């Protein structure tokens, strides 16, 4: 078969797998804001906290847990001492409370805290109204003990938590290292395969030259133990590939009411009306091929409504066609289900996937090995009945950096990792947070569409040489999104990257 011939002929790309720098790493934010400090009676400290927390709700997106809520006299930063330490106040009697943003108005603060005002030695019983001093505080937790120390001296006492900030900035190093070690040995091959898939997509006229390869690391581990025999026919390296998909953005145009355009011509420009949508991009198609395979397992479903596939896509999908006669001999036949419920009752995710954890890969691995040995023919795409759920724990290899839409799609599909060549980084990409080649030159002759250059105005005032600084979204490990897919780039050995840098080519959504 042609596809097997092609697999034998694939030459791995040479290079190193490296983690994508996150937006928190490349654009470290040092945000500051105003806060109030007031001196209160030290004996009332816990009551003060209670009152503050109940009267003035905090913003859950800004926990500010790195800021100490109280500072003793000797903890007050040097420059604030003249402001805060008044004559006659003693560390035995008073302590300083921090009121952090969102800041309430002074009157309601006065109202809430006046019972806890410091005892006033000069006026006996009557304590004077509280004074609220405005200071600056850091909104982000300190990233290093040195930073924590500097802020404590110059702004307000802060606490350094070695675990918390790291995970907010980038994937934990041990998790990253483990994934990289498992990805490095075969990444060059998978990426070379992704390029062949991309070639096929372009040749077929169905899409741009973009390809995706989805790999199950658990199958790789199995193959490593099973296939140590010598009769390797040159394609065993692809045994862990569960699906491949090429870009299909021009595939809808054929069924449109619009006249078809020769794809090779339109691929040289970005023309949104002919691009199809992101659901036809390589990554989204790969996700849907996997889902469509699982849907076939449902009673009453058939393989007939498979989307239009290229040879390579069909080849890998067929690796998940379980030989039903073989399977039937080892599996009890499933009782007929009521058909009226099949469409309306969604199958819930298998238990272990309802909550994904870092360690979920371990039990799954042993699980599949048991299953594999009892079945004569197994599906590469793990069926729902064996715990297959979305793209959990799968890796995806792409020829290009995915667009923002596909980047979020891979998060929602719960991939373990995404890998693309650094030369495939896109100005329209969703994962990287910085350009490879610095400022990208403005492309000439791209403005035939009147809307297209609406950002021309924004370009003014940029670097005088006509280059422009573009927005790189850097969704990878964005803390607001609770990102969990590990992002890697494949850095090809010098001079070996063919086709130059995608950032300098036509800007489109990959």
């Amino acid at each position, binding site marked *: 078969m042609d596809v097997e011939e092609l697999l034998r002929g694939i030459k791995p790309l040479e290079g190193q797998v490296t983690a994508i720098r996150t937006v928190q790493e490349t654009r470290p934010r040092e945000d500051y804001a105003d806060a109030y400090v007031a001196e209160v009676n030290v004996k009332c400290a816990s009551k003060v906290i209670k009152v503050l927390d109940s009267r003035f*709700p905090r913003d*859950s*997106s800004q926990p500010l847990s790195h800021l100490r809520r109280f500072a003793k006299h000797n903890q007050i930063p040097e420059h604030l001492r003249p402001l805060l330490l008044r004559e006659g106040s003693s560390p035995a009697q008073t302590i300083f409370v921090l009121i952090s943003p969102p800041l309430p108005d002074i009157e309601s603060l006065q109202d809430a805290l006046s019972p806890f005002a410091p005892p006033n030695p000069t006026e006996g019983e009557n304590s004077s109204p509280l004074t609220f001093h405005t200071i600056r505080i850091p909104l982000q937790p300190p990233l290093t003990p040195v930073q924590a120390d500097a802020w404590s001296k110059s702004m307000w006492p802060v606490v350094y938590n070695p675990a918390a900030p790291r995970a907010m900035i980038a994937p934990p190093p041990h998790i990253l290292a483990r994934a990289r070690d498992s990805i490095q040995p075969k990444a060059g091959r998978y990426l070379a395969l992704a390029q062949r898939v991309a070639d096929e997509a372009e040749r077929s006229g169905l899409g741009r030259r973009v390809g995706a390869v989805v790999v199950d690391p658990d199958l790789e581990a199995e193959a490593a133990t099973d296939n140590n025999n010598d009769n390797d026919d040159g394609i065993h390296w692809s045994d862990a590939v569960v699906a491949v998909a090429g870009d299909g953005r021009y595939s*809808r145009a054929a069924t*449109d*009411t*619009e006249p078809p355009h020769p794809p090779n011509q339109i691929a040289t420009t*970005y023309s*949104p*009306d*002919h*691009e*199809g*949508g*992101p*659901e036809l991009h390589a990554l*989204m198609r790969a*996700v*849907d091929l996997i*889902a469509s395979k*699982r*849907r076939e397992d449902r009673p009453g479903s058939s393989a007939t409504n498979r989307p239009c596939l290229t040879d390579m896509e069909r080849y890998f999908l067929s690796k998940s066609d379980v030989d039903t006669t073989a399977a039937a001999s080892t599996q009890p036949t499933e009782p007929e289900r009521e058909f009226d419920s099949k469409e*309306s*009752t*969604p*199958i*819930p*995710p298998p*238990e*272990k996937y*309802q*909550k994904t954890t870092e360690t979920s890969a371990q039990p799954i691995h042993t699980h599949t090995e048991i299953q594999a040995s009892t079945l004569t023919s197994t599906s590469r795409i793990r069926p*729902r009945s064996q715990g297959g*759920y*979305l793209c959990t724990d799968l890796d995806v290899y792409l020829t290009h950096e995915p*667009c*923002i*839409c596909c980047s*979020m*799609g891979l998060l*929602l*599909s*719960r991939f373990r990792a995404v890998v693309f060549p650094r030369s495939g980084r896109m*100005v*329209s990409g*969703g994962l990287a947070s910085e350009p490879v080649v610095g400022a990208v030159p403005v492309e000439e002759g791209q403005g035939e569409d009147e*809307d*297209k250059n*609406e*950002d021309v105005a924004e370009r003014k005032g940029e670097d005088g040489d006509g280059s422009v600084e*573009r*927005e790189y*979204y850097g*969704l990878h490990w964005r803390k*607001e*999104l*609770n990102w969990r897919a590990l992002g890697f780039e494949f850095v090809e050995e010098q001079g070996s990257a063919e086709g130059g840098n995608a950032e300098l080519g036509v*800007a*489109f*959504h990959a």
Partner: protein
Amino acid sequence: MEMSGDMPPELLENNAEHAYFMKQALMMGEKALATGETPVGCVLVYDNKIVGFGMNDTNKSMNGTRHAEFIAIGEMLRTYPRSALRSTDLYVTVEPCVMCASALRQYQIRKVYFGCGNDRFGGTGSILSLHADRSIDPPYPVQGGLFHKEAIMLLRRFYIQENEKAPKPRPKKHRELKTDFDQEVLIASPTP
């Protein structure tokens, strides 16, 4: 469902029209709720007609990317050319997520109306502002807050359900369906 007719003042002019389309989106959300999907619904309106209905379909399709917006666009594109989306408005019960916000921009949607915000994954203002940021596609305007109480109630009714398939089903017997809107409500993610 009872409607409070809660509309942002900017929309009062074409109140009846906006209300009609948003109610249709809410009905799609109801349908999603009834079939065990996260209750998000939407409609696409072209030339004053609904040309696409969508509801979240991630469970049934076993595909985590099948959000309401994609379903509706898929339906529309079976009949209309892609360029028609440039003259099409979206009414969706919850602010589009980052994925959908980017897709809508790539499709060059004309305008997006939504019910409640999406504090976890919102792509048109809550987390990112993909409708307005610089991009190779033109920006689109968004208008939130149409029937936002109804949109929130749909989500609350979904999340109060017990999930007996969960590893440790959490009894939610004592939970009461909250109906107050005194405080800004934490909106759960419209994803599975």
